[in-house]
């Protein structure tokens, strides 16, 4: 339970939700550009998932690579939910009684599909670049050295383990051979004993 709610996982969750909110904002302002006095421009519609993915990749650089992927998936889910909620706001707030009435103004299905299709690959691409960037620049050189030492230590440990296993295997084979020889001698012994009797 405590591992499930570890600080790194909570951080990942908060950062993913934050990135998803930012992406949803740019998507919604782009799709509702006629309905708002604020329009940041259509290009941000594609840039925002890459940028948010990049930042997510940077902030999750100290975690496992799979966390970056989980983060981008959570970011996509958050963005999709927020886009849907905003576009359905007239229905949610009770202004439009029929949910299809809200869809008249903006094609809801198209917007949701567009969010899913574009956010996931673009944010994933951004997170890969962000991770690469963080590993090459942001992460401290001492950490890199430490990681290198750890890697070489692990390799050495594996070599030692292999050697130990080899030794153990050889010892076992030797023991097996000795046992077989002893068994042969034991089989012959009773027949001699019977003859003597």
């Amino acid at each position, binding site marked *: 339970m405590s591992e499930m709610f570890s600080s790194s996982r909570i*951080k990942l969750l*908060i*950062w993913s*939700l*934050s*990135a998803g*909110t*930012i992406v*949803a*904002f*740019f998507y*919604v*302002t782009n799709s*509702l*550009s*006629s*309905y*708002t*006095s*604020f329009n940041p421009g259509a290009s941000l519609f594609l840039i925002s998932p890459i940028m*948010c993915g990049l*930042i*997510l990749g*940077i*902030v*999750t*650089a*100290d975690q496992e690579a799979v966390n970056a992927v989980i983060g981008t998936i959570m970011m996509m889910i958050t963005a999709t939910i*927020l886009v849907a*909620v*905003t*576009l359905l*706001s*007239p229905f949610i*707030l009770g*202004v*439009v009684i029929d949910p299809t*009435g*809200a869809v008249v*103004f903006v094609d809801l299905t198209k917007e949701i599909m567009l969010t899913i299709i574009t956010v996931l690959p673009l944010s994933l691409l951004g997170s890969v670049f962000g991770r690469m960037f*963080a590993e090459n620049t*942001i*992460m*401290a050189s*001492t*950490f890199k050295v*430490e990681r290198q030492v750890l890697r070489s230590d692990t390799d050495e440990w594996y070599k030692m383990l292999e050697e130990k296993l080899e030794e153990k295997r050889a010892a076992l084979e030797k023991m097996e051979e000795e046992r077989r020889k002893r068994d042969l001698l034991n089989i012959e012994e009773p027949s001699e004993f019977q003859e003597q009797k």
Partner: protein
Amino acid sequence: MSKTRKLPVTDVIGILLVIVALVSAGGLCYVASEYTKIADTLVSAEAEISSFRIVQNNATGEVFINVMVTLNNPSSLDIEIYRVEYQTYVDRDTSTITSFDRYIGSGSTNDNNGTVQGGIVREVPVSHVIMSDTLYKDRLEYALDGDDKLYAYTGGMLWFRLPDYPDVESKIAFGFFGEVFVRYV
């Protein structure tokens, strides 16, 4: 030791991400409220014909069809009417009134219809004239059938835009059907 050096950098970036996300969440709320306000205006605006009159000038034989279209705007946003258009059909009875050979003309008005402020009802007068000795006058005479009473159907559209959001345009349909008495002047 190295971990304590590395973590603050990612944490600072993460905190900045959260701050930007909070601003974006505020922006989302703003966009949602604006969108809801516009949706409310588009859905709640109603148009109807408040008066329909047919007046014939005995001296010239011209017939004036005067239609008063009323727009009710209960929302908080202003509405700018930029076109009103209608078509009129007349007949002796109601059976074939919408067929094209009962059509007697259409009236329209374009600009200068003014802005209807939020919570205000406004009337837009639209009219057209039927000249004497025309096909439309003959149809009107046929519908009158010797008396001063006929059945009339008028259907039309009112196009409007929101002055605060110039890209947002919509239209409302209106109609009228009933017995009409022609006035002679």
